[in-house]
């Protein structure tokens, strides 16, 4: 268990430190470096403790429960391979942190840098140690995001922002591909557990989705590891501070791609397709990166392309996939991380001390900074593959792997030649780096006078170079056992015995290596002047600028295509949009229903339905009349619409739905009152709208009439078709059976609303509250139409006094009705659970009661006597509902579980009481508040406008 917890600690510590680092003061460079450095040391110590448990193919797995219900647990797993990788992350991380302490200027906000570096270390650890393939993708994307933040560290610079965005888009899109691949992999293997997936290899490679999975998978790996044709983001990421480039973009993050290639080799590898894609792309990248690197003048640009090239080398080895090639791949991952990190740091030192990274300006630095020069020269030697350095050994192994017969395909035969040519270019650019920067006459026009950096800034470089030498001279003693452990985890138990040696005798790889070296010297030294002084790259390279292509694509996808789509697809104006929606839904319904068998029996019409028919004759006439009159006679249309509403209400009564009838009736009243209040602000239409009767307008109306007829007919047909078939088992039956037993009420509709489906109701009253507040907010800045600022005509004729006399009798009646309406509201509320009524109805009733008071007397009179605080009603309603719902958590039930029983209240008698009733009270309170808020907000406009209109028109 201790080991499992250590594993968890390994992932969590960097994140905790990242949070701490973010909170330190801006200038605390030393504190930041100590915190981050200690974090890395803790990680290294933990790794040291864990080492005995990962040798000989063993692994440790720690599972921490997370969302077990969907098969997601926090599973961490470490084996020899991830252990070695972790040592790189923590070890190089430590050196980078030390280096960054001296590299960053005192003006830079270092907490952000260290915090992101630590978060990156955490994300990378998570990625390496994930035992669940979905979690692996999550950490994978996390590294992309942190990388984005780090590249954009100097966000005031345009190139930093562009580089950051480019790298995020490329690597995160790749991550999405990887996620899809992982999901499919998990489905094929039947588990998202890493070990299960790796064990399901034979099953995966014969699956029919294998090619798709493989392509998605390599898209993820290639974008991350900057493989052709996605390599372009890496040179652009060089806008990051050098410690970041050294850590993320050479040693660790870009290796994540090759890490998953090697990790998933047992599951996906070993097929011809794998060989063709992975080795093919790897070799292409190897060659391309090496050639371009030779022509870069920017030090970091050269190193970036060199990194791309070396990543291609590792990818090619992963593609070859023989045990020997896999060992070579692991070995080269380590070697490349060591020498490239040191080279980046050296480049950073040169930049720091001279003020430029342009190789056309740098020259003869060996005199000014001899130690740094010596270190950089050794590291470049390793990069070129010079004997007695670590790069030589793994490059020999690579040559060996390409040279031996693998599968005899064209690519396989071709590979050794590509390897030699790429090796030559690699030697050439290393040579160019050494010769131009450190030798020759001392440069005279540098921004700073070059000198040696502080000792501690040089120390990380020195340590890394010492490792290059140690591994290069005593490979078996220094790295042999660790490599054995790591390779065992990748290759499995049939790992061939191997021993790292410097001298294997004169064999083909050595000859290849010598050819490459010689050729490299020739390639650089002969056209030296052209390369040194020319532009970046040759003309063909500039033409094939992938970064520009990417920018063009991005511009196309995010700006031009959307604009085009907007121009082509969008409808101009609301009418056209609504028409499109109606037509689309018509078409969709027709498409779905066209195959339906319309053979329904003809309905019988009995004598007792005559009344119903008459009722709807009135209702239908009202509806059509409203449609006809709504343009010029708004008030008439409102009355007719109310008529249709009343007939609807009667239909509900007729068809055994008293609850609906009550609610519909009350809402009808509130709607009418609301529309009447609104009509006050809509100037009367006195004359015909110009052009309303010309041909075009008539044509539009006819077209819309046809659409409306089609909709109406369709709905009739649809309703009839459903009504005339016998229903199957309905969900409603379940509610009927259980309403009393479980909900404790006999009014099933109410029980559904406040108990079974209370969560829906909760959402709905929230919507109501939002609408109420929106209405209120919209009306606060209300500017009425200039024509309606004046008081309405009847009010202009009469004085205030006369108006009250005019409504005297109704006003008295309305005031008398106030108490009965409150009683009615309470009655509706309390009987709601057992009889028609409930919170909705009660709320609307009380709102109507309050509204009547406003109608009866003028607003000031009412508000002097009655304080209504609608917003508080709404707030308490929502709070009560939520609290009742949350209350069930205390008893261990899900949100909004109700408890019901009957309570004997003196005088009133037995009353059904349940927590659902409290919930219903919340509904009541909110409905009351929202409706009153809306009505009062509109009614109050008269007050606001009346004032200026008394003193003179100020509006507009």
């Amino acid at each position, binding site marked *: 268990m201790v080991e499992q917890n250590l594993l968890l600690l390994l992932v969590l510590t960097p994140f905790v430190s990242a949070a701490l680092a973010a909170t330190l003061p801006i200038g605390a460079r030393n504190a930041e470096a100590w915190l981050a450095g200690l974090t890395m040391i803790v990680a290294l110590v933990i790794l040291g403790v864990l080492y005995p448990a990962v040798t000989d193919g063993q692994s440790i797995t720690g599972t921490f429960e997370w969302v077990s219900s969907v098969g997601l647990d926090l599973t961490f797993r470490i084996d020899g391979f991830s252990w070695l990788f972790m040592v790189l992350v923590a070890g190089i991380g430590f050196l980078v942190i030390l280096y960054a302490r001296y590299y960053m200027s005192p003006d830079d906000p270092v907490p952000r840098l260290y915090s992101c570096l630590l978060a990156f270390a955490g994300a990378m650890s998570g990625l390496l140690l994930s035992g669940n393939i979905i979690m692996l993708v999550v950490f994978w994307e996390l590294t992309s995001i942190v990388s984005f933040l780090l590249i954009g560290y100097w966000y005031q610079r345009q190139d930093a922002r562009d580089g950051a965005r480019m790298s995020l888009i490329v690597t995160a899109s790749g991550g999405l591909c990887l996620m899809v691949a992982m999901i499919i992999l998990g489905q094929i293997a039947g588990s998202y557990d890493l070990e299960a997936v790796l064990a399901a290899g034979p099953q995966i490679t014969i699956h029919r989705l294998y090619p798709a999975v493989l392509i998605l998978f390599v898209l993820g790996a290639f974008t991350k590891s900057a493989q052709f044709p996605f390599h372009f983001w890496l040179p652009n990421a060089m806008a990051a501070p050098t410690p970041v480039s050294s850590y993320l973009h050479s040693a660790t993050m870009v290796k994540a791609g090759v890490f998953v290639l090697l990790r998933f080799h047992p599951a996906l590898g070993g097929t011809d397709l794998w060989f063709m894609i992975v080795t093919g792309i790897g070799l292409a990248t190897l060659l391309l990166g090496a050639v371009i690197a030779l022509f870069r003048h920017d030090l970091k640009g050269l190193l970036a392309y060199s990194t791309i090239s070396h990543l291609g080398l590792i990818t090619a080895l992963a593609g070859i996939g023989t045990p020997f090639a896999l060992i070579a791949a692991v070995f080269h991952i380590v070697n490349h991380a060591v020498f490239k990190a040191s080279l980046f740091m050296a480049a950073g030192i040169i930049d720091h001390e001279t003020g430029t990274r342009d190789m056309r300006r740098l020259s003869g630095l060996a005199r000014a900074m001899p130690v740094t020069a010596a270190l950089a020269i050794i590291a470049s030697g390793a990069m070129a593959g010079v004997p007695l350095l670590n790069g030589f050994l793994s490059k020999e192994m690579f040559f060996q792997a390409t040279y031996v017969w693998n599968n005899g395909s064209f690519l396989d035969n071709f590979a050794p030649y590509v390897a030699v040519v790429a090796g030559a270019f690699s030697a050439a650019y290393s040579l160019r780096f050494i010769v131009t920067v450190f030798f020759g006459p001392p440069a005279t026009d540098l921004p700073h006078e070059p000198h040696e950096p502080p000792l501690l800034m040089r120390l990380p470089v020195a340590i890394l170079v010492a490792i290059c030498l140690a591994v290069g001279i005593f490979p078996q003693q220094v790295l042999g056992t660790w490599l054995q452990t790591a390779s065992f985890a990748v290759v499995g138990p049939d790992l061939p015995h191997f021993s790292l040696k410097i001298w294997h005798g004169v064999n083909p790889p050595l000859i290849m290596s010598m050819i490459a070296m010689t050729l490299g010297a020739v390639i650089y030294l002969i056209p030296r002047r052209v390369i040194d002084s020319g532009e970046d790259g040759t003309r063909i390279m500039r033409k094939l600028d992938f970064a520009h292509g990417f920018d063009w694509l991005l511009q196309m996808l995010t700006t031009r295509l959307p604009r085009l789509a907007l121009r082509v697809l969008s409808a101009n*104006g609301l*009418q056209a949009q609504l028409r499109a929606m109606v037509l689309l839904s018509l078409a969709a319904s027709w498409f779905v229903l066209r195959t339906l068998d319309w053979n329904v029996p003809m*309905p019988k019409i009995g004598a007792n339905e005559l009344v119903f028919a008459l009722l709807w004759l009135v*209702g239908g006439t009202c*509806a059509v009349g409203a*449609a006809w009159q*709504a*343009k010029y006679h708004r008030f008439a*249309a409102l009355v007719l619409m109310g008529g*249709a509403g009343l007939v*609807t209400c009667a*239909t509900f009564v*007729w*068809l*055994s*739905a*008293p*609850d*609906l009838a009550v*609610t519909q009736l009350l809402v009808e009243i509130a709607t009418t009152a*609301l529309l009447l209040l*609104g009509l006050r*602000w809509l100037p009367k239409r006195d004359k015909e709208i110009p052009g309303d009767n010309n041909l*075009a307008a008539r044509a539009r109306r006819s077209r*819309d009439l046809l*659409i*409306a007829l089609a*909709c*109406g007919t369709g*709905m*009739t047909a649809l*309703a009839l078709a*459903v*009504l005339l078939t016998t*229903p199957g088992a309905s*969900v*409603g039956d379940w509610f*009927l059976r259980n*309403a*009393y037993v479980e909900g404790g009420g006999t*009014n*099933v*509709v109410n029980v559904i*609303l406040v108990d079974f*489906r209370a969560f*829906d109701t909760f959402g*709905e009253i929230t*919507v109501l509250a939002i609408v*109420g507040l*929106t*209405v209120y907010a*919209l*009306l606060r800045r*209300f*500017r009425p*139409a200039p024509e309606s600022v004046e008081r309405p005509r009847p009010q202009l004729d009469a004085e205030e006094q006369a108006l009250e006399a005019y409504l005297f009798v109704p006003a008295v009646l309305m005031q008398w009705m106030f108490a009965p309406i409150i009683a009615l509201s309470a009655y509706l509320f309390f009987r709601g659970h057992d009889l028609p009524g409930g919170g*909705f109805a009660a709320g609307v009733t009380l709102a109507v009661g309050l509204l009547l008071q406003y109608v009866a007397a003028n607003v000031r009179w009412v508000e002097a006597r009655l304080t209504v605080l609608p917003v508080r009603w709404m707030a308490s309603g929502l709070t009560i509902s939520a609290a009742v719902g949350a209350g069930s958590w205390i008893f261990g039930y899900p949100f909004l579980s109700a408890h019901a029983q009957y309570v004997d209240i003196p005088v009133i008698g037995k009353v059904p009481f349940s927590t659902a009733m409290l919930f219903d009270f919340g509904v009541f309170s909110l409905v009351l508040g*929202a*409706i009153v808020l*809306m009505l009062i907000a509109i009614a109050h406009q008269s007050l606001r406008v009346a004032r200026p209109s008394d003193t003179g028109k100020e509006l507009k």
Partner: protein
Amino acid sequence: MELILALAIGVLVGSGVWLMLRPRSYQVIVGLCLLAYGVNLFIFAMGRLYVGAAPIMPKGGFVDPTAYADPLPQALVLTAIVISFATTALFLVLMIASRGVTGTDHVDGKERHS
């Protein structure tokens, strides 16, 4: 009964859709209300029609569902009524505010150019 209700739904929806496609905002409001009636009746009708069925159950015990109206569409329609009220209110306020700001009651805030 079924035929009449189906026709009623058709008339309500037809009138509603026609109004919804009109250019004046008040027409659209009335149209939405009519459409809401039609749609509410339609949802309600999906539970089939029960004339004279008891809407309220007796207390306790097992009941035979066929003797009662289907409560589920009713519950759905009840919430739909309240929500359609809320949309009407919102649209009404938008209408008068837009009339005040733009000086026209055309749904697009400007008269058609023709």
